[in-house]
């Protein structure tokens, strides 16, 4: 029945206010995060060659983020700003819906979304990345790769990015006055200054009325629309991303925002706990 009439199968569960995997409509999947350079378990490894990395699992959806810092000259019109370049990749190994080749629309839209979240929330101020005005600045390449796609990519990506950036340690760079070259001191490291902590919460709209939190891939396919709300710790909205789909009233949107603010507190606690546990390294 599930493969022949998926929508009817789902409707039966929704009438009882629950979902096939046993969750309630407002329940999130189990979230785990792994930060840092050393991998003790083979399946939860993080990247040792990156300057900062994190692995996030939201139920089955697995997203890994690696941040690499490189040096570059700042642009002519913004001499005191560095660069942050996010890139979301959905390789064909994560799901059968993605083919190998140039990035598809979903990957590009996700990359744009992440870039917007970084910009809107001001989690990293580009002026902080500048080393020498007009001459040298940091470029942070954030590569977000999905290893297993089971819905709710945007939430997992934002969380992975946040966790990875908290893990980044930038070596100190000094410009030698005589030679004009930069000297990188790998022994002296300072963590990246992160001003805000944005957290994304995604909802799927079903049949124009029901709102489901944290949709799986199957639910996303059957849904008639999606909404993603990004909030920061002050309860300010960094992004209300609703790319089309069923119309929502202002009141429903408000309901989503309230739930997003609650979710933010949970995620923040989780991140703080994990950071504390790896600090002694």
């Amino acid at each position, binding site marked *: 029945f599930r493969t022949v009439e998926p929508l009817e199968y789902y409707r039966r569960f929704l009438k009882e206010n629950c979902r096939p995997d046993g969750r309630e409509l407002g329940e999130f999947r189990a979230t785990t995060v792994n930060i840092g350079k050393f991998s003790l378990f083979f399946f939860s490894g993080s990247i040792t060659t990156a300057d900062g990395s994190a692995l996030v699992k939201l139920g089955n959806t697995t997203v890994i983020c690696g941040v690499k810092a490189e040096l570059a000259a700042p642009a002519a019109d913004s001499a005191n700003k560095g660069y942050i370049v996010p890139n979301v990749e959905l390789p064909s190994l994560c799901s059968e819906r993605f083919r190998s080749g140039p990035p598809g629309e979903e990957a590009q839209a996700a990359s*744009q979304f992440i870039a917007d979240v970084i910009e*809107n929330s001001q989690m990293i101020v580009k002026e902080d990345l500048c080393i020498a005005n007009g001459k040298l600045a940091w470029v942070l390449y954030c590569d977000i790769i999905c290893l297993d796609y089971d819905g709710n990519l945007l939430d997992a990506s934002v969380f992975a990015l946040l966790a990875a950036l908290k893990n980044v340690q930038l070596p100190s760079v000094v410009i030698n006055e005589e030679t004009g070259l930069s000297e990188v001191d790998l022994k002296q490291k300072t963590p990246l200054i992160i001003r805000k902590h944005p957290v994304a919460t995604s909802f799927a709209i079903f049949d124009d009325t029901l709102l489901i939190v944290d949709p799986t891939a199957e639910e996303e396919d059957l849904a008639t629309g999606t909404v993603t709300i990004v909030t920061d710790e002050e309860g300010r909205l960094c992004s209300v991303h*609703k790319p*089309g*789909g069923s*119309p929502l009233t202002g009141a429903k949107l408000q309901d989503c925002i309230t739930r997003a603010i609650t979710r933010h507190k949970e995620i923040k606690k989780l991140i703080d706990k994990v950071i504390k546990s790896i600090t002694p390294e």
Partner: protein
Amino acid sequence: PVTPPWLSPGDTSVLAGLYGPAEAKLSKELPDRAALEVLLRPKVGLPGVLERSREQQLRQTCEAVVLGVLHPRTAITLVLQVLSDAGSLLSCCLNAACMGLLDAGLPLCSLFCGVTCALGPDGAITLDPTARQEQEARAVLTFAIDSSERKVLMSTTKGSCSVEEMQQCLAAAQRAADTIFQFYRDSLQRRYSK
């Protein structure tokens, strides 16, 4: 049929061309509904990641209103060409897209319109901001409002704002939507009364 309506609030203008329902390529056709495709071409340069993201938003907004089930296994293509950009570009694209759908005579369950709100540093709300106002604003929110119940079809934000401010902008956008729908009615009346 090629239909070229265009919209220009202020100096922003976008040309919309709609083709369809036409035969779809085997790889793209859907068995139960029409496959909608949106192509957004910027004024200069090749389409990049930003255009792809806008295309996805426009496509899903159009999919919500077009009654695709009446034309299964066909393709509807909407091509938007940006002629000039002086602010409020996304809402201009939304309006052009809706007029294109209307002009082509596609079956729709409701109309939609795009409204952009800019939140100034002092909290003042400006509708349909110019490029300069957008840059100076603390936050820029774009909504697609539908015509039947004034609900939100699509929403994008740039910059951050508080929840109350967002609700205020949404209310202002819903009021402004009335003016835009009246404009649709007037221009269609003019077109078909000739």
